[in-house]
């Protein structure tokens, strides 16, 4: 194995990579003309980073604490609405809340702060509702968590799913119209101007999640995941830690909801349904349950494949292949099949429970040529061993058949096939004295 890098080099490398990525996103967003097909890349980066954040938050819960929760879409919904409601500029209220006489809240945090502090106030005005969105979601989650977290695995899943559905009905309730605009979309609220914004916010949030996972709390979470009883015996307060994990995860789901609201520029409660939760879950699974790196990769791959690369499958022309099979909906079928293949044959996902590290990367890179060279041989060996196993199985089957047939003929000829044990004291003693 090659020599490992020292921590300083690693830090420099990491910072350089992140900086390069941000610069590329910035340049991409500003220089790529809207009509170029590369512009989709930027859209995917925006949406991908938002879903990376929510996937990481779900992973914190499902992968690191072992709580199978399916409430993520509901929490994103609250986050998105909270952000949107408080950032709609005063003059737009009349148009947005057109059926509710301009709504209850007539001001926007962004406007107020921008008026006092200028450009800085503008961004502060975006951050405060965003953090507020996270906090409100966290508070709601804390309340929901008290009853729900006492449930185990699938009951927890179905209960959180239920809560998400209740929340959706609540936000669409006409009587709340002056605040949530009922069934109608919220729009005109302040959004980010550059693709770098969601990337940076999501990046910071994910970094906080990673720090949390590596702290003593993170270790306690993992202990709970691996064995609740053992964890409790070691003095970990189960409920406190579960609640903490649930609340923190929901906080970040709320932030990602706020980001999604900015990305979409309009918000409506309908899409925040169970399908959305399932999609987030599938991102986590594709990336690897218990790997934040995996969730990030999974999110980008998921968004890019489902909304960009496979789109051609719907229109009948994809990678130069044309086929009658390809009509609207085919993309989703192919996509669902890919997901099922991953779930069944590749259950640990892309990263398993490993994280990215420079050492691992370098090792992988160094071994790559050897691995590629060894690959055909390995495959051959695998096929060979499979073949052998199959042959062994067939032989055993044949032998069993033969034995059975032989037995039948022997029985037919009246031969006793086994000698019954004499029912004697000796046998009984075994039950009394034997160990």
């Amino acid at each position, binding site marked *: 194995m090659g020599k490992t890098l020292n921590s300083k080099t690693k830090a420099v490398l990491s910072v350089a990579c992140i900086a390069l990525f941000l610069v590329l996103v910035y340049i991409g967003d500003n220089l790529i003309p*809207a*009509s*170029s*097909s*590369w*512009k*989709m890349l930027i*859209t995917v980066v925006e949406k991908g980073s938002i879903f990376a954040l929510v996937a990481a938050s779900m992973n914190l819960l499902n992968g690191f604490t072992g709580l199978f929760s399916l409430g993520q879409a509901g929490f994103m919904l609250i986050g998105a609405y909270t952000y949107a409601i408080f950032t709609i500029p005063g003059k737009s209220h009349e*148009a947005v809340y*057109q*059926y509710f006489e301009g709504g209850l809240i007539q001001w926007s945090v962004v406007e107020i702060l921008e008026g006092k502090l200028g450009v800085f106030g503008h961004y502060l005005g975006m951050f405060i509702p965003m953090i507020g969105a996270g906090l409100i979601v966290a508070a709601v989650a804390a309340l929901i968590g008290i009853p729900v977290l006492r449930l185990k695995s699938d009951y927890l899943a179905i209960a959180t799913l239920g809560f998400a559905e209740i929340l959706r*009905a609540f936000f*669409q309730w*006409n009587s709340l119209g002056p605040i949530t605009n*009922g*069934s*109608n*979309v919220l*729009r*005109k609220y302040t*959004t980010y101007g550059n693709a770098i914004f969601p990337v940076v916010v999501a990046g910071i949030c994910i970094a906080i999640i990673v720090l949390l996972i590596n702290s003593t709390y993170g270790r306690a979470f993992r202990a709970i995941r691996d064995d609740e009883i053992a964890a409790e015996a070691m003095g970990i307060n189960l409920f406190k830690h579960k609640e903490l994990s649930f609340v923190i995860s929901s906080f970040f789901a709320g932030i990602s909801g706020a980001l999604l609201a900015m990305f*979409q*520029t*309009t*918000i*409506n*409660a*309908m*899409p925040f*349904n169970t399908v*959305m939760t399932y999609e987030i879950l599938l991102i986590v699974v594709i990336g690897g349950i218990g790997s934040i790196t995996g969730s990030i*990769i999974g999110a980008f*791959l998921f*968004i*890019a*494949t489902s*909304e*960009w*690369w496979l*789109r*051609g499958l*719907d*229109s009948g022309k*994809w*990678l*130069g292949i044309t086929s009658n099979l390809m*009509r*609207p*909906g085919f993309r*989703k079928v192919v996509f669902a099949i890919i997901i099922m293949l991953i779930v069944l044959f*590749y259950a640990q*996902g*892309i*990263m*398993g429970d*490993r994280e990215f590290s420079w050492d691992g990367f370098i090792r*992988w890179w160094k071994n*790559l040529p050897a691995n590629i060279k060894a*690959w055909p041989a*390995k495959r051959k060996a695998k096929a060979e061993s499979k073949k052998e196993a199959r042959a062994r199985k067939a032989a055993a089957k044949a032998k069993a058949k033969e034995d059975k047939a032989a037995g039948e003929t022997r029985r037919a000829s009246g031969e006793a096939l086994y000698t019954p044990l004499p029912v004697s004291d000796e046998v009984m003693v075994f039950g009394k004295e034997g160990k």
Partner: protein
Amino acid sequence: MKKFLALMLTLLLVMMSLAACGGGGSDSGSGDNVIKIGVFEPASGDNGAGGKQETLGIQYANFVQPTVTIGDTEYNVELTIVDNESDNSKAVTAAQNLVSQNVSIVLGSYGSAVSIAAADVFADAGMPAIGVTCTNPQVTADCEQYFRICFLDPFQGTVLANYAWENGMKKAYCLSKQGDDYSKGLVNYFIEAFKGLGGEVVEEQFPDKNSDFTSYVANAKKNGCDVFFSPVSTEAAALIIDQAEAQSLGMPILAGDTWDSNVITEAAKGKKVDITVTTFYQEGGNADFDSGIKKWMEENSEAMTNNGGNTEIAAVTAMGYDAYFVALEALKAAGSKDAGDVLAALPDLQVSGLVCGDVSFNETGDANKTEAFVKKCNTESGTWEFVKKQAAE
């Protein structure tokens, strides 16, 4: 080994992406004599059925007139169709997809919420868009790039309320779908107008994915209403008609443009229901178009399937057809295939000879339409019958 495989898989996907981009890139560059028109319609989700019918009209128009002459050059018109899945969060990427494929103009969508969601993408890109049947005022209200060729909900709501009042209906049961901007909006304008005339209103909403309309029909009866107003998507409409029959609703059903579809006539055929709708187009209004598109659908099995298995023409199909020709006129007027030039040409555009009436735009970008067609379902033959033209005043 597994990790290695995983990375190979990732690499493969990345390569695929490059190939896809490459493919896309070479497509957009293929020949100067191609003009792309983006079609932004739902093919799945709640509004999938309506979106497909609207797309059909555009496709038929493209079949009738596959070229456009700008200046002295003849261009082939190619349709770039994306599915916005009737979903706000998918609509943004779908719209971005169109923009990035370098289309000259966008048509769509069926369903106002997705159009509102996409409006900002089109605005950012300076991409002109023509709404075909999105009737919510918000679509064009603050978006310079969005135009539309249909009438608006305030207009339609008033027309419907007038019609109901004129026919002696005093108490209306209004049912809209939770989280659906279109039905909620239209119901709101209807209520406003109906109450203004002195009518009484009971309003309810049903949650999405609901297929049990028994109780809603029972509620309408319980409240002693005179008319059942439910301008919802065709999916729910078929179920409502079914329950209305089963429970002998005993009052007329009134609805907006979405119900002008063969899904409704099919569902109502042979049933004791009384359905009246307002709409953009009346079958038989333009004989050439009617016979032409019917023939086209008969020859094209996929189109027939998308239309729901028969050749009854939905109003949205006729509107889709019109939208395509408006787009061609805009391209001609612009004298170039550049999106910016098309955008500049749109406000002053006047198009006549369309099947649903002439089109010109007012200052917000909406079509100047003053009349809607009122149609009634003949449940014996399963067809629509023209009743009258109704104006808002």
